[in-house]
């Protein structure tokens, strides 16, 4: 079963409470997503560490039930 968009947003926000998540359905199939995540927690962290925070929030379904997530991260302006 693919992961629904609302579930993706909920998990990211549960793991990163101040996260602003913009989710885009890339293929219109509820299965290929692009997420842009903005959080103050990313400040001063390298990109790999920023992405790992998001992957950790999503949990072990990342790469499994959720296999297609294009991810970009940023700190708030």
């Amino acid at each position: 079963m693919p992961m629904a968009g609302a579930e993706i947003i909920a998990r990211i926000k549960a793991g990163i409470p101040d996260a602003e998540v913009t989710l885009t359905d890339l293929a219109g199939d509820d299965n290929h997503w692009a997420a842009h995540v903005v959080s103050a927690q990313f400040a001063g962290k390298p990109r790999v560490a920023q992405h790992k925070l998001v992957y950790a929030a999503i949990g072990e379904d990342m790469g499994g039930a959720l296999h297609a997530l294009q991810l970009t991260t940023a700190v708030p302006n």
Partner: protein
Amino acid sequence: MSDTNARIADIVNSSDIVLFMKGTPLFPQCGFSSRAVAILDHLGVPFEGVDVLQDMEVRQGIKAYSDWPTIPQLYVKGEFVGGSDIMMEMYEAGELQQLIADAGITPRA
């Protein structure tokens, strides 16, 4: 598990640039792997593509080795750089070119 890690360490260090991917550089089997190959091809640098679909041990083991849940994964000089999104962000910022140049890797003539 430690055998797997030793095997992966050998692969990671076997070439200056190693891309763990689904499919081969000529025939990528996933959009993200395809994008990673396109970036490296555009930079014109030689790299070793490792098809994880052909090797279940490496496919699972690389995720633990890198502490990174998805494929593709880029290694330069034995160091984990990131997945295709990070490759794209770094490429657009000129950072990937810089990292490769700093590693002493020159584009193909």
